[in-house]
């Protein structure tokens, strides 16, 4: 919990965005860009740290603010990486900005993954679509602290190879001996795809999982949750060992504006990472 609010509290205005410069923009798949940001204030740049699964509130000056997961790992400080999909007002405005433009950043917010609990366990990361954005932070955190974790497995599903976020980075992981990187696509029109085909749940056939020593971390579209959860429960995963990142509309990110509340939890401060147990006990949480 300690990392969460130290930065914002410095100036006593929890809504204060701090200026950060877009130092690099890396094209991902269509309408998704990876932005590398560096805080203008050098102290901020060196002090900023986060927990995988946390997010920031990103301001495009004049257009508004939106929550975005931190895609970089806290093990690689100095630069904050955000992978953003162009979808509405703020994100469109972000895509219009030139390199070196200034944006506002505040955070990190949210609970993030319970790293202390995950350590010394097997880690099963299951991603679909933009879900890889927060999970990438977790993945690299685990890989950079390889000794602290047992087996690390990544399962990722996409429609086509062209729609895999961080594709080249992930393809390189396939050959890594200290983890299992399973990538699957529904179809590949170009016929060059060498990894798996089919929905992400099919990847369960390629792994052996011990539910007692494994944590599953999920992030993806609702439909993915539906099938993956079924698969995990079938394998006797405790509901407490299934961690999922949930999405809700957010305005403040700090538990005040009300938008992300579900029942009596706020997605922004009590989440966005919830155990499956928490999730089913919240009305409306799982569709």
């Amino acid at each position, binding site marked *: 919990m300690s990392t969460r609010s130290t930065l914002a509290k410095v*100036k006593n205005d929890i809504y204060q965005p701090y200026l950060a410069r877009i130092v690099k923009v890396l094209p991902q798949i269509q309408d998704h860009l990876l932005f590398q940001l560096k805080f203008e204030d050098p102290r901020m740049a060196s002090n900023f740290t986060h927990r995988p699964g946390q997010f920031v509130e990103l301001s495009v000056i004049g257009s508004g*603010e939106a929550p975005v997961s931190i895609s970089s790992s806290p093990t690689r400080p100095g630069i904050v990486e955000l992978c953003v999909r162009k979808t509405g007002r703020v994100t469109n405005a972000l895509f219009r900005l030139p390199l070196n433009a200034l944006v506002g950043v505040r955070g990190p917010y949210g609970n993030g993954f319970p790293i202390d609990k995950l350590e010394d366990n097997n880690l099963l990361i299951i991603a679909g679509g933009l879900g890889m954005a927060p999970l990438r932070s977790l993945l690299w955190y685990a890989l950079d602290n390889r000794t602290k974790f047992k087996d690390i497995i990544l399962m990722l599903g996409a429609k086509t190879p062209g729609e895999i976020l961080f594709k080249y980075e992930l393809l390189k992981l396939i050959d890594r001996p200290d983890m299992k990187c399973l990538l699957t696509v529904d179809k590949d029109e170009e016929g060059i795809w060498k990894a798996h085909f089919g929905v992400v749940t099919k990847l369960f056939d390629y792994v052996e999982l011990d539910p007692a020593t494994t944590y599953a971390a999920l992030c993806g579209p609702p439909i993915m949750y539906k099938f993956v959860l079924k698969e995990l429960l079938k394998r006797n995963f405790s509901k407490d060992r299934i961690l999922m990142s949930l999405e809700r509309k957010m305005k403040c990110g700090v538990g005040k*504006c009300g938008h992300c509340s579900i029942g009596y939890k706020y997605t922004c401060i009590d989440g966005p990472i919830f155990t499956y147990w928490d999730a089913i006990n919240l009305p409306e949480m799982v569709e």
Partner: protein
Amino acid sequence: MLFYQNLRRDLVKTMQILKLDKKNLNEFIFSLNDFGEVHAPVKKGDKQFVFSKLTDFSKIKLEYTRTILPPKKYFHPPTDTLFKFSQEEGYQSLTEELRKKYVIFGLHPCDIYAIKILDLIFAGEFVDDRYFIRRKNVAIIGLDCIPDDKCFCRSMRADFVEDGFDLFLSDIGNSYLVRVGTGRGDDMVRKTQDLFKEVNKKDITEYKRRSDEKKNLFKVDIELSDLPEIMDLEYESKVWEEIGKECLSCGSCSMVCPTCYCYDVFDEINLDANHGVRKRQWDSCLFKDYALVAGGHNFRAERSLRVKNRFFHKQRGFVAQYGRPSCVGCGRCIEACPAKIDIIEVINRIRGAKL
């Protein structure tokens, strides 16, 4: 040990109760101007009331029932400009007007209670300083009241308050009992010390009599203890759909509720396409786009879900979070709803009570 006993005695003394003759009230209120701009309930239209800057003593309506907007407007205004911004300078906090001092005279217990609830929300892990700076600069003078047919503060355990005010006035006939709640309240009293008298036995008797009498004036009684469970059990109740048909999503109930705090945040840019301001503005969970996210998915697309959410959050979710409902039973939402959706009736329906 003795030291603590003495201190305790001092404390009791400072939490004093005094008496103010009604004929001295105006003079007392006038003196409050030294503590901030005095606001009090005045009439608006033929039947309604609002807290507004006091310009004329004859305008104060001490017998008001409830104001259109609750006092939250002083701490969490309908629209609040948070920052000014530009590409070059980023976001700069705007704090000047937070420092203005007010004295609000005449808050009823439910409204004071509601402010205490807002305090919980704006505090917590992330403290909303904008709220609390304003909060510190507003002195609160409570006033007891006579419930009408829409008041159910007693059911919501907000009919009496022990704290949350600087001073609290209770009508005992020709005078008021004045409870001093804070050091600032003490300053206020000491400033016009001559206006105040000691409380005598008779006053106490009269206070107790009136207080008992008030308890019997409530026409509504809701059982709270098992409400959360019942609400969970009735989560799928048809009642929600029925209310969903009536609800206009006009937002009136949320605006007037003393404990509804949701807000939207947006940037407003100037014609130079660079400078501008970031504002927040009251929002309502009853609005269609309240839970609508980019890409078009709406977590509460149906009106019935949104109505349900409002009642759940007030009477169920808040209990889980803070141990009591966030509704204080002020009756404002009942009065404001054009469709006559009545929170008391809804609860009774959920309970299956005959109506």
